[in-house]
């Protein structure tokens, strides 16, 4: 029997597992978290399960249906609290996992093999650096969202949401939902970029009812709560001695340069900032998967990557939201189990994917990061949060060694060498240094492993 290993139990991974089971494969589904759902369906822990948790989510019944289906299925083994720390490419890829509570000292090591692997590791917020972004009280949009949905915690009393993209709206809605006052949402993309992305071919939007209704719901919620929504504005500084006390917002031009004289100070105790998403590429890169020019994992019509037997789905292959992830996951799971994208079983998923990919193209046109953001940085602005490397240090080393490669620049400045391994700052460092020949995406060890755990014997399974 074909054995399919699915990495990540968010929308794409859940859909992949179900589709692979439907095609008759034996499935192993692993996720680092202790609950299925990924970031999109991040929810309260079992001990605090909400009787009306569906009120906090879109597509909640879809999630619970996928989850219950897999939990009840003896042909699907669900391994939660299971982090993949390495992947070895080969005829039968070997996936090395650690099982146990996050970062614990006594997790058990296991090696999993399968005929095919579906990588559905998702994405995380990309927050562009700005002066003061290292202060407590500055959060990524995803943090505010995860803490609201998974903990029912509001990160502040009076909060501003800023950055770029439609994700800012659910972040604001979640914050309101846990009792924070949202003092404003500041979208960096100007009305021209938004019009270019969203206005052409409006009929296409009618074909994404899920997404359009989701966004319309947020917009109505915003109006009802009278949250100011400004386009062409950005947070360019967070102010405060030990934590955020205020922020500076400014009007941005089309390239995201602040317009002089438009700066305004707002008193807030938290600010949530997200300028888009970065795919979690570690495992796909370790497996040898090629990336596209957009630096997402390149896949064909079957969601197959450049590596035989390795498939990818969801935000890893492009930011399209949960609807895209569900359809891509279904196609990936089906094809990983030996199916073909032309099969009847995935006809609906293929059509949904086509619609969703147009939606993703609109997102990119409307909300793409523009290069003027680096003008927000002063010399003492921290770019690499872990190693506290400033923009000034990066620029100085760049100027002193103009011919040095990215690797050499990293070793000199220590940018990207801290605990997060450049996950937070990587692309910002590349842009500040102006390097185009190399990237900071490669991290062969995808998860910190303790030496004692490495010394323990690994259990092999086939």
């Amino acid at each position, binding site marked *: 029997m074909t054995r399919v290993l699915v990495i990540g139990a968010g929308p794409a991974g859940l859909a992949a597992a179900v589709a692979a089971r439907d095609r008759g494969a034996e499935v192993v589904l692993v996720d680092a978290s202790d609950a299925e759902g990924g970031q999109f369906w991040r929810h309260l822990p079992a001990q605090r399960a909400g009787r*009306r948790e569906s009120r906090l989510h879109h597509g909640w019944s879809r999630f619970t249906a996928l989850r219950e289906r897999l939990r009840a299925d003896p042909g699907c083994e669900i391994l939660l609290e299971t982090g993949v720390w390495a992947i070895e490419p080969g005829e039968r890829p070997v996936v090395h996992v650690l099982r146990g509570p996050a970062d614990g000292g006594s997790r058990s090591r296991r090696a999993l093999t399968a005929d095919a692997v579906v990588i559905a590791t998702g994405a995380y917020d990309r927050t562009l650096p700005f002066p003061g972004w290292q202060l407590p009280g500055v959060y990524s949009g995803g943090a505010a969202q995860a803490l609201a949905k998974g903990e*029912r915690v509001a990160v502040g009393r009076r909060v501003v949401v800023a950055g770029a993209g439609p994700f800012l709206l659910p972040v604001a809605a979640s914050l309101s939902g846990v009792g924070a006052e949202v003092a404003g949402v500041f979208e960096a993309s100007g009305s021209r970029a938004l019009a270019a992305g969203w206005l052409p071919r409006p009929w296409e939007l009618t074909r994404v009812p899920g997404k359009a209704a989701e966004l319309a719901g947020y917009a109505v919620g915003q109006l009802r709560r009278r949250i100011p929504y400004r386009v062409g504005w950005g947070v360019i500084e967070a102010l405060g001695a030990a934590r955020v006390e205020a922020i500076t917002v400014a009007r941005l031009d089309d390239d995201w340069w602040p317009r002089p004289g438009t700066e305004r100070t707002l008193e807030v105790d938290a600010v949530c900032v997200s300028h888009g998403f970065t795919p979690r590429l570690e495992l796909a890169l370790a497996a040898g998967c090629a990336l596209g020019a957009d630096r997402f994992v390149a896949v064909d019509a079957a969601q197959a990557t450049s590596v035989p037997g390795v498939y990818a789905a969801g935000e890893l292959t492009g930011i399209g939201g949960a609807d895209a992830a569900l359809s891509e996951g279904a196609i990936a799971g089906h094809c990983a189990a030996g199916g073909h994208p032309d099969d009847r079983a995935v006809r609906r998923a293929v059509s949904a994917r086509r619609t969703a990919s147009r939606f993703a193209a609109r997102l990119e046109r409307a909300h793409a990061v523009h290069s003027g953001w680096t003008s927000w940085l002063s010399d003492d602005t921290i770019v690499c949060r872990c190693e506290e490397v400033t923009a000034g240090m990066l620029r100085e080393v760049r100027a002193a060694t103009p011919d040095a490669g990215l690797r050499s620049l990293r070793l000199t400045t220590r940018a990207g060498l801290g605990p997060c391994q450049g996950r937070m700052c990587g692309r910002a460092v590349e842009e500040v240094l102006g390097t185009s020949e190399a990237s900071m995406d490669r991290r062969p060890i995808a998860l910190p492993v303790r030496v004692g755990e490495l010394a323990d014997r690994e259990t092999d399974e086939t």
Partner: protein
Amino acid sequence: MTPRMLPGDIDPAEPAIPPTVAVQVDGCRVEGLQGQTLAGMLLAAGRDSWRRTRRGHDRGVFCGIGVCFDCLVTVNGVPDVRACQRRAHDGDIVELQGGDE
């Protein structure tokens, strides 16, 4: 005291109210709910920073989903545990990390 938790009795999601748990954070008792992460528990207790960087600056949660490693704490003697990813267990001894480590 700026972050806070929405009380369960007024939460439209109608969460179950689980038993409480207590952990020691640098010797001080902090109470929370079963199922909270250590970060969730500290934030609900009104605390938004708990790690100190090498240069002496305070950090708490930034990404909230286990990617940024800003929220690291020592739990029961094991250092560098992401507080946003680890559920609190009754009796956990949490030590804050900071300075030249």
